[in-house]
């Protein structure tokens, strides 16, 4: 059984309530941090822990915190990114829904470290019922002296507010989130200036993911060095993985980043194998934006090593032969699924979510969707496959924010690994309407094909 740091108590009855959470040892990290540590010491512990941003990019959290500017007399803000919208990802929702006080606890400690007296949780608008859960937890925390003025008599003041978005994937990008928090359209800003210098209302701002901020609690309780002992290499601590698609046991799992992908998919402790006795065809291991991997490259790296569920191993082989840990949205496709249709739905998603600010993304995502739709519905031409490649290439790296890359990568990987499936659609325009391509050579564990 893997070590659990975040979800260990998630199923204690009534853990959503303050009294139960406190009885189970909750809010100890606030006592420890505020009474025994200086703010910079908290940041140092987070640095030592090796914690990396859990939203997708994997940037070291302690380093991000140390960048925050501290001009005299200017308030600073911590903003929690709860705009979880990456297809395949539903871990933050789970954490906030089942153990909301863990997030509030992490936010208080992190606010203390950063000197944020007013902290916001930016939550996606669709999670409307979670807003109620969080606001209740905040009220309880405040009534018990963990929020408000002069917390624990230390002189530190902190308020937390929930800010509800209104349906825009792009607001998960930190500068778009800041724009949205200011009551504007979610158009990402050009960096620099970085939010750590000029963020919300031009004040120094740190934006961190829900899971990242919750992880600060065990880091303070255990100490950064102890936390860093869990995991392998630069993948320290535990990670929440939200597993979905064609598996027996979809859900949110906390792993310690030492288990193999094979174990994660097939063991009963996690996904419980492929649903309905079918075979594994492919998987997107880190949310829809990261490259899809065929079964052969998923379970073993191109070098033939066992692939592990962590940052380094999942990206082993680069984009040609690997993928990314991303947000931990683990999407599994069985042998009956159509890669063309799946890629089409993702392209439609990115077209819908492009903010329209940069032409390569605004126009390119529309092209990707249209071309993929044509191929999926038997109206494709052979030249369309190269056109897809060309369009995605011209989006990648040419936009203000990473949404362009996120739209390009899934298409690139699908064409790279499943080109024969695209060709089959084009050569069999009638048959492709009535059945799927199924497995092909890419399910063969021995063969490794890349563009």
């Amino acid at each position, binding site marked *: 059984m893997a070590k659990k740091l975040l979800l260990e108590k998630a199923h204690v009855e009534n853990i959503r309530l303050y009294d139960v959470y406190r009885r189970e040892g909750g809010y100890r990290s606030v006592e420890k941090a505020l009474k025994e540590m200086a703010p910079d010491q908290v940041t140092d512990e987070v640095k030592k822990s090796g914690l990396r941003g859990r939203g997708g990019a994997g940037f070291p959290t302690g380093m991000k915190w140390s960048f925050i500017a501290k001009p005299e007399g200017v*308030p600073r803000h911590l903003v929690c990114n709860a705009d*979880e*919208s*990456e*297809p*395949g*990802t*539903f871990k933050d*929702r789970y954490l906030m829904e089942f153990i909301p006080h863990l997030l509030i606890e992490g936010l208080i400690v992190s606010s203390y470290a950063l000197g944020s007296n*007013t902290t*916001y949780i930016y939550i*996606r*608008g*669709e*999670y*409307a*019922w979670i807003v109620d859960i969080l606001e209740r937890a905040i009220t309880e925390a405040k009534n018990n002296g963990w929020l408000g003025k002069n917390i624990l008599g230390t002189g530190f003041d902190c308020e937390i*507010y929930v*800010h*509800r*978005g*209104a*349906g*825009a*994937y792009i607001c998960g990008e930190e500068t778009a989130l800041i724009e*949205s*928090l*200011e*009551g*504007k*359209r*979610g158009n990402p800003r050009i960096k620099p200036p970085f939010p750590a210098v000029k963020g919300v*209302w031009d004040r120094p701002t740190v934006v961190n993911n829900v899971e990242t901020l919750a992880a600060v609690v065990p880091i303070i309780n255990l100490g950064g060095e102890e936390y860093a002992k869990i995991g392998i290499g630069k993948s320290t601590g535990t990670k929440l993985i*939200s*597993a*979905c*698609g*064609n598996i027996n046991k*979809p*859900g*949110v799992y906390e792993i310690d980043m030492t288990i193999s992908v094979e174990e994660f998919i097939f063991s009963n402790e996690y996904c419980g194998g492929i649903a309905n006795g079918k075979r594994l065809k492919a998987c*997107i291991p880190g949310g*829809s934006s990261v490259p899809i991997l065929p079964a052969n490259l998923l379970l073993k790296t191109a070098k033939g090593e066992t692939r592990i569920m962590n940052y380094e191993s999942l990206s082993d082989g680069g984009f040609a032969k690997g993928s990314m840990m991303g947000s931990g*949205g683990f*999407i599994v*496709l069985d042998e009956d*699924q159509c890669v063309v*249709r*799946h890629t089409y*739905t*993702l392209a*439609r*998603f990115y077209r*819908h*979510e492009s*903010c329209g600010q940069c032409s390569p993304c605004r126009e390119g995502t529309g092209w990707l969707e249209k071309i993929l739709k044509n191929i999926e519905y038997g109206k494709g031409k052979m030249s369309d496959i190269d056109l897809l490649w060309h369009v995605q290439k011209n989006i990648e790296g040419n936009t203000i924010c990473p949404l362009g890359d996120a739209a390009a990568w899934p298409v690139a990987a699908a064409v790279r690994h499943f080109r024969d499936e695209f060709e089959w659609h084009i050569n069999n325009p009638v048959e492709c309407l009535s059945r799927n391509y199924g497995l092909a050579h890419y399910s063969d564990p021995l063969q490794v094909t890349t563009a």
Partner: protein
Amino acid sequence: MSIPFSEEKLKKFSEIVSRYPEGKQKSALLPVLHLAQEEFGHWLSTDTMDYVASLLKIEPIEVYEVATFYSMYNLKPIGKYMFEVCQTGPCMLCGSDNIIDYIKQKLGINVGETTPDGLFTLKTTECLGACGYAPMMQLGKIYKEHLTKQKVDAIIEECRQTAALNN
């Protein structure tokens, strides 16, 4: 359902504005638009948006540009119950296409349409963050997950009964 906000909603409005620094009341725009949508018939008319602009002391265009950007603001009237069915990758893998087709057939409407009795609107959405509980849809403030045809039948029936009771 007519402008302005009730006394109670105005209190809520002031509480929302107080979460943001002095002079940064525009930051309250998204939550206030949610409040307005709840209060004024689940959609935002131009009059409603102009009213919100006057409350926040910003230009109407600042409200329009936001209301048209975010997918949760309805710019046209909708049915009493809006089925927002997710159709993105993970839901598709678990059969959302069949669910959407079934709802279309059952209600006799296409995506984006409202039934003639004004009860149901069908909308497809992109990922709602419930991929492990697919297929799913949003109905008002809650999620309906692990959808099957039988479940859809039961949801429609429940909506009809609730509507009949309230009439």
